[in-house]
């Protein structure tokens, strides 16, 4: 089945993964800017990273017939440095009109601190002023419920973003209801230990219906499985769910959300 992984960090993966994803039906990947595993020191570090996301990585993906989309921001972890964050925010517009850039992301909260909240709000302001989509990271583990609700409060306080233009990612059973009830897209991340499993994601699709739910692998430099979306497809098929329902989650929903970006172009394989 053709599918899209709407949240995967391919800069940290080898071409073996592209080769595997291409064989498993992946037509496109969407890669938000994220924490590299260490705190970058300067805005030029982010400039180089954005260059990599918007030029080199799409060419790496294209060699395997996979469309590459990307998102730009300073991530929640590095957002604790407000001064650096503001330099990065000022620099983001230099890259926004590059092909494949879908919007601002993955912004969010990490430890739910005042500085993180400030920088999150300033990213939302940037997105609202420039008419951009937003992809949001919700915190890990014990911080997720508190952080998700804080994020929803901040979005409501700003009020300018259309709910259809926002994807709140890494939802789990205790946060998905809040996100869907307020009209946003909700991403389920199939990542070992700290997030969800294919079976639990399938359960959430059954409990809440397939509308506005997406699944992703968030494959990155840590222990993770870039083929997690095919695992979800397999689990849904094992349960006897229809091909139409499965395709709705793994292909139609990502396409519907991404197509709201004025720079979105359909993956070549789907044209």
């Amino acid at each position: 089945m053709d599918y899209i992984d709407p949240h995967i960090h391919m800069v940290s993966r080898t071409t073996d993964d592209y080769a595997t994803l291409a064989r498993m039906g992946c037509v496109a990947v969407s890669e938000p800017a994220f924490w590299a595993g260490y705190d970058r020191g300067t805005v030029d570090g982010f400039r180089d990273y954005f260059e990599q996301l918007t030029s080199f990585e799409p060419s790496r993906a294209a060699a395997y017939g996979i469309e590459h989309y990307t998102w730009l921001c300073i991530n929640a972890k590095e957002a604790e440095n407000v001064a650096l964050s503001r330099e990065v925010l000022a620099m983001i517009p230099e890259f926004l009109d590059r092909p494949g850039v879908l919007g601002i992301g993955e912004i969010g909260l990490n430890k739910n601190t005042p500085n993180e909240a400030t920088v999150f709000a300033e990213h939302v302001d940037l997105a609202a002023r420039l008419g951009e989509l937003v992809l949001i990271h919700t915190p890990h583990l014990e911080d997720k419920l508190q952080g998700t609700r804080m994020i929803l409060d901040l979005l409501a306080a700003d009020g300018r973003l259309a709910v259809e233009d926002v994807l709140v990612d890494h939802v789990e059973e205790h946060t998905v209801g809040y996100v869907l009830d307020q009209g946003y897209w909700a991403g389920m991340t199939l990542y070992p230990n700290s997030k969800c499993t294919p079976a639990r994601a399938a359960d959430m699709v059954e409990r809440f219906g397939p509308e506005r739910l997406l699944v992703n692998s968030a494959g990155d430099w840590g222990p993770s499985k870039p083929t997690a979306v095919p695992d979800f497809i397999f689990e849904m098929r094992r349960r006897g769910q229809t091909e139409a329902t499965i395709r709705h989650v793994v292909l139609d929903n990502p396409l519907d959300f991404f197509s709201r970006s004025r720079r979105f172009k359909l993956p070549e394989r789907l044209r």
Partner: protein
Amino acid sequence: MSAIPSPLTAEKILDREGTTLRAQLLDIAALLDRIERAAGGENAEAFAQLPLSAIRELLIPGDADRVGRILRLYSRSYDPAWQERFAEEGAS
């Protein structure tokens, strides 16, 4: 949001997943045994309250939300007045 039915009956789910369930229960049991065997293990109730409370949640039926309940048990609390609190902390 409209739920979609599970194509499998409850009995079919257990039939299909029973071996996996057994393996997962054994992993939990082995971990608890490992804790009990280790030095200080006799005080497990004191320092392992969170996981033990989560295990007790497994036995409470009726709302099909054991996962949500356990996740909430493991979560920091949300304060609806956090924005006011941040504003006060910022001012001071």
